[in-house]
């Protein structure tokens, strides 16, 4: 009480001194909004500055001969290369086609890996026997650096899209699996008891309690796992492909074309950022029942 009335007096006094008397509350809101806008502008400006300093320093460094452009390339050459790919096409075909192929492989692997991860994670989370029997094998499989399976798939599934989807799916699977498993294990016991008292059978318990409860864990893992799907697709392409951004990078490497490697990397980064935004949108849809987290900036 005291604090509030004191604050009221304070703001009233301040508005009387600095601004025409009237609606101090409205003024405060307007001031907040102005401050927030100014801050956003600041952040945006500083971001541009960081990019300018980094790319400018790089370019300057190569021009002055401190950095060897043969190994490290330079921003102007990278942009020229990108522009060449966009306007003239790459040696594998139009650039958008390469991006599309890699995106298809990534999304395919992401979807297959996530679905398998959720199904098997929930199954093992529900069954003590299954998790006890299979647990050590899954841990062992997880300990292997899994990108090497890309080599296996390149042999068994061929050089087309299937082997890349498989590689990406394997990487995604383990992340989603562990989160789904843990999510099911950590379901609030009271919620289960409540559902059973209300009359839920085993199936309803799984679909209406366990999976929704595990969903916040699973969704949290999707950000990581989409990045891994992209890794899987590109690594798959490195092991052997006829199309895709990974293949572009591989070709550039074989021609000692550092600018090409960097251009491919930039392309992958852009694709990952777009995907990240899509996943955030998906997350908001899937768990709209969760209280919004008060964050100041979203990266």
């Amino acid at each position, binding site marked *: 009480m005291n604090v509030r009335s004191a604050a009221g007096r304070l703001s009233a006094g301040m508005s009387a001194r600095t601004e025409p008397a009237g609606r101090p509350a409205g003024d405060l809101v307007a001031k907040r909004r102005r401050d927030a806008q100014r801050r956003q502008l600041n952040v945006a400006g500083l971001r541009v500055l960081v990019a300018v300093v980094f790319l400018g320093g790089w370019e300057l460094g190569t021009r002055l001969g401190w950095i060897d452009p043969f190994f490290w390339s330079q921003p102007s050459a990278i942009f020229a290369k990108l522009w060449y790919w966009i306007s003239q096409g790459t040696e594998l075909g139009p650039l958008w086609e390469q991006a599309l192929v890699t995106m298809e492989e990534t999304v395919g692997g992401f979807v297959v890996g996530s679905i398998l991860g959720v199904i098997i994670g929930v199954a093992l989370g529900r069954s003590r026997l299954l998790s006890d029997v299979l647990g050590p094998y899954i841990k062992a499989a997880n300990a292997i650096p899994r990108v090497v399976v890309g080599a296996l798939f390149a042999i068994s599934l061929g050089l087309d899209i299937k082997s890349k989807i498989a590689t990406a799916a394997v990487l995604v699977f383990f992340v989603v699996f562990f989160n789904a498993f843990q999510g099911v294990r950590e379901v*609030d016991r*009271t*919620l289960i*008891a*409540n*559902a*059973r*008292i*209300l*009359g*839920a*059978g085993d199936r*309803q318990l799984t679909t*209406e*309690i366990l999976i*929704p*409860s595990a*969903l916040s864990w699973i969704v949290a893992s999707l950000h990581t796992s989409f990045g891994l799907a992209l890794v899987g697709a590109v690594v798959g392409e490195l092991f052997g492909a006829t199309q895709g951004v990974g293949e572009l990078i591989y070709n550039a490497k074989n021609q000692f074309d550092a600018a090409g490697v960097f251009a491919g990397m930039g392309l992958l980064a852009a694709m990952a950022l777009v995907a990240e935004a899509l996943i955030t949108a998906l997350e908001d849809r899937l*768990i*709209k*029942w*969760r*209280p919004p987290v008060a964050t100041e900036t979203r990266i």
Partner: protein
Amino acid sequence: MSPAIELHHATKRFLTPSGTVFTALQNLDMAVEPGEFCAVVGPTGCGKSTTLALISGLEPPSEGEVKVFGEPVTGIGEGIGYVFQTDAVFPWKTVLENVAAGPRYRGVANRDAREQARDWLSRVGLSGFEDRYPYQLSGGMRKRVALAQSLINGPRILLMDEPFSALDVQTRSLMENELLGLWAASSASVVFVTHDLEEAISLSDRVFVITAGPGTVKSNYKVDLPRPRNVAEIRFEPRFGEIYQEIWNDLRDEVLVSYERQKRSGAA
């Protein structure tokens, strides 16, 4: 006519993670008549919640018998409602979906279940909140959702485990009055666990005092206060004070025993 609930020499033991046996209830005898509102009071950790778990069928007794309407309890019973101490409404379901869950689980078509749920929401004063999620409600409103969720199934036995202990005092007496109204309109027997003797007396027809763990019934008292009651005012009746005095004399010893034990285990 057989009692609605009957516990006969019920004993419940748990295996603790360290491998020792913990006896929560020992030779507990208790009978609740159909339509009776009973309160169970006792010191913390005396097995009050375990008693409800036995009646509901969530846990089987280690020894002894638990009967509901003359039938031994073998699993989760049909006619049971349970309001939990902590929030047990489903956070990912809207208020309406939460209340409609019970009928849907019991095979009612989705549309009819929603229709019933709407009706129950208006009875607990939550019309207009159908599409909210639980995190958007206050603690008192979430308790109303929990009540509607349990009552929609038309339970013959309503078990309540310190349901209002997390609410502030004003909300609490409001909810207590509403509970009495809803109970009067049903024919359910209620077992209401609480550590608050005032709450126990103002709500119930009968109060069971449980001993410091392992819990067993020490005594039971009939509360002969007239109904309908207003819980906010009934505590000023002289008869209320007399009953309180009588039960407290009994309860105090158990609370002291439990407190001494806690002190000792805390010191050790």
